[in-house]
């Protein structure tokens, strides 16, 4: 690893006078020696201690997820000391008046005791739940950042898949945790899961039976989910977070194009000390913000819901936000999607949404491989794209986000209805239509906006900003003076990769393979209306032109640059 400072030396070398070591220094030295003689840790410190991390706000989102997870582990451990994962019946004798004397499960009673009898228990419960919501939200935003900047490209495709699995596991953690208090809300959530599982062909009935240890609700599911929630899923999550971070270190972080930042270097701050201080401090900030929210905002008031009972249900029964898209998909199915085939019941009203969601998830997971196949680009990419510079990818992302958002909105169709004075039927119909139209519109609009921004970037790179100052030339001609960019500013606008549609040529055997035809179609769709980055000669020409005529008329700069 070579670490150099641009321009000026990074660490000003000061010749400090040689002093005899103080007691503290002697102790530190001895301790370090003791550990290194037994662990060889100095090699690791040497290797990692001055690794460079680029600074950009969007690069912190994964850290938010990591820190939320640590907060979840800490607060969750506290909760396990008080929570009892049993569905045995007890009579509530705690201090919450509206539940006194009510029969409930031990799990629910102990959740109430955590909230009402343990000092700080309410705080920890709320920190835990808010942190869980933030965990998955920040993973989502982190994934969007990675997608829209193309940070999933070689060599990071595998880490995208690892991160994706982490996202799925996080949702699993969330759902199992949501079910543990055994209140009315979580019980109805489980009942929906039971109904969905039963809808699966052949194995559904038995799967539900095995999951619940008999008929729904049974007395086993909370204990089983507890084991998944605090043992199995966290273990896998931790292991995969380890893999995710090791791959991050191996691949090093991407960076945005900037003067001096190239595909072959990383520009930023070293782990020791600046990044360690920032990242360490940021952990405390994330923890602090979560604690602040938990101190003042109720989350999941389980005491309102009462113990699980199969008969009641509350208006506004919804899952936590990250399961919302699945709940919404169930709501959007039109009536009648179920039939009987040779005596067997096929519930398309469950299978269709499950299939759509499964397909959506697989498409997201495999997208990096699709783009790699399409471009045939085997280079490593360490410069993050600005979203506008890959309009088709950005448009695909926007379409996907719209699709997800419509499903998500559908999960609160009843609240949309009551809060916007609409009939729920109209909300559902509207969202059904939007599920198909929305992504298409989002795709077209996003792509046009990206290309428009690219054109503007190109214009500015070539001709500079319009300064608003009008000057009269000696010949009587009026021109507006353009403020040229300096080369550092210009670099950010012109530094991006350019691709063009594949031209079909026969291979050595004189054949055009089907794969090539498919790639030709895909690349044409992807790159046909691209805007190429400004080249040196275009810049020279523009400047020569500008010197002669000013910029009043503009010289249609994009002409000739748009390849079709």
């Amino acid at each position, binding site marked *: 690893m070579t670490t150099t400072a*641009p321009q000026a030396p990074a660490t000003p070398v000061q010749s400090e006078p040689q002093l005899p070591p103080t007691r503290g220094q002697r102790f530190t030295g001895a301790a370090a020696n003791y550990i290194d003689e037994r662990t060889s840790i100095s090699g690791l410190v040497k290797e990692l201690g001055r690794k460079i991390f680029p600074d950009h706000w969007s690069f912190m989102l994964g850290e938010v997820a990591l820190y939320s997870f640590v907060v979840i582990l800490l607060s969750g451990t506290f909760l396990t000391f008080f929570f009892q994962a049993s569905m045995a019946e007890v009579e509530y004798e705690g201090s919450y008046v509206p539940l006194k004397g009510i029969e409930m499960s031990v799990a629910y009673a102990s959740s109430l005791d955590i909230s009402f009898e343990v000092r700080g228990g309410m*705080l920890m419960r709320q920190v835990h739940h808010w942190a869980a919501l933030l965990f998955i939200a920040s993973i989502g935003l982190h994934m969007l950042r990675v997608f829209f900047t193309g940070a999933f490209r070689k060599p990071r495709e595998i880490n995208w898949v690892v991160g994706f699995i982490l996202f799925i596991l996080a949702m699993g953690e969330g759902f199992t945790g949501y079910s543990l208090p055994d209140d009315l809300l979580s019980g109805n959530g489980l009942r929906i899961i039971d109904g969905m599982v039963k809808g699966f062909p052949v194995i559904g009935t038995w799967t539900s039976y095995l999951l619940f240890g008999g008929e729904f609700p049974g007395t086993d599911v909370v204990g089983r989910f507890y084991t998944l929630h605090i043992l199995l899923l966290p273990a896998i999550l931790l292991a995969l977070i380890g893999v995710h971070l090791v791959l991050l270190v191996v691949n090093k972080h991407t960076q945005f194009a900037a003067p001096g930042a190239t595909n072959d270097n990383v520009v930023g701050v070293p782990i020791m000390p600046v990044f360690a201080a920032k990242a360490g401090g940021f952990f405390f900030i994330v923890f602090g*913000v979560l604690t602040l929210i938990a101190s003042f905002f109720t989350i999941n008031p389980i005491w309102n819901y009462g113990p699980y009972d199969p008969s009641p249900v509350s208006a506004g029964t919804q899952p936590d936000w990250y399961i919302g898209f699945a709940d919404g998909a169930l709501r959007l199915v039109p009536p009648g999607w179920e039939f009987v085939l040779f*005596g067997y019941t096929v519930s398309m009203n469950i299978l269709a949404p499950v299939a759509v969601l499964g397909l959506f998830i697989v498409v997201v997971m495999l997208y990096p491989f699709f783009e790699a196949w399409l471009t045939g680009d085997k280079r490593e990419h360490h410069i993050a794209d600005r979203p506008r510079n890959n309009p088709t990818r950005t448009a695909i992302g926007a379409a996907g986000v719209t699709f997800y958002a419509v499903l998500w909105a559908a999960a609160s169709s009843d609240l949309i209805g009551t809060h916007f004075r609409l009939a729920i039927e109209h909300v559902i119909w509207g969202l059904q239509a939007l599920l198909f139209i929305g992504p298409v519109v989002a795709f077209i609009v996003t792509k046009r906006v990206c290309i428009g921004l690219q054109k503007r970037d190109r214009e500015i790179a070539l001709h500079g900003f319009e300064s608003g100052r009008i000057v009269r030339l000696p010949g009587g001609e009026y021109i507006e003076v353009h403020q040229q960019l300096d080369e550092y500013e210009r670099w950010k606008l012109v530094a991006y990769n350019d691709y063009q549609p594949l031209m079909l040529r026969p291979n050595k055997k004189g054949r055009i*393979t089907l794969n090539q035809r498919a790639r030709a179609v895909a690349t044409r769709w992807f790159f046909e209306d691209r805007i190429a980055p400004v080249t040196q000669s275009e810049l020279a020409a523009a400047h020569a032109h500008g010197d002669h005529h000013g910029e009043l008329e503009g010289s249609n700069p994009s002409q000739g640059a748009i390849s079709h």
Partner: protein
Amino acid sequence: MANDSDGITGGEAAGTAVEKAAPREVASGVGVVASDRIENPGFPPHRPRVTDEDPKKNYAAERTVSILFYLSIVGSIFAVAAYIAFPIVPGDPGSIRLNNALLGTGITLGLLGIGFGAVHWAKSIMDGHDLVESRHGTRGSDSTRAAAVEVFRLGNKESGFTRRSLLRNSLIGALVVTPIPAIALFRDLAPAEDPVGLLKHTLWDEGVRLARDPEGTPIRAADVTIGSAFHVIPEGLEDSEHPLEEKAKAAVLLMRLNPGDLNELPERADWSYDGIVAYSKICTHVGCPVALYEQQTHHLLCPCHQSQFDVANHAQVIFGPAKRPLPQLPIAVDEEGYLVAQSDFTEPVGPSFWERSL
């Protein structure tokens, strides 16, 4: 390289073009590498911070950071003080709210003080220069790869893994079979009996009285005035072996409509009593309790996925993802005037399952 044999080209440079300074030639696919692209101008001049140039500002920043750290100490002490000074008073939910808010505020202060202090330290006092680290290709060097291949070759040679196919194949076979007992072990997650039979029966039976949920008191037909909705369980539910599981199947909604509004199927003409009808409360979609009864439109709405059933028309689906009508419970009146079931439901209640119609 793979691309050459594919016979593709993405412009004059594609296929052979590499990004500048890449250590080895890599295909760029349809990527265009322009020959006269604008070059990276290199690092701009370093802009020193005010704390670099003004020792007073530097000292002020140092003081701010230490104040933040002291604030953190104050916050943590405050949290412990609040823990002791604002205990939970039994029966007073306000005390929990206060405990939660004050304890949380203290901890928040303790955490944010460290967090903002450390970041401020890093931003304004620690060295402000950007450093550069060079990247190398992710793949191992050719010699490393050759060594790795050699390791595998030796491993193979010394074990005879590919040569001794009998050994290898029998090992693979054994490895494939070993997890099977582990799968079998999970069989006892559920009891031995077949779930399908259980799903097709509920506690309802001939003569079982309809009782109020949750009290379990029987209901007289005369109690059910027009426009009423009663939430119903079978009498004796609490004494059954598995009350929750039975309730999950047997919950019923009892409604009385003006008999003139009721459009009954001919074969179910005697399933109601003077406009009183009883339907399963368990949604035929995924099983939420459907109990949002509108007494004038006679619609039943499921709050989970908005399926709607028309009680006046034998609970057929009028909106939403459910397919089947809610199962109807045939009812009658016994000699004491109480409502009773004529039989169990004539079809399985709740969500669909594979073996439902068998």
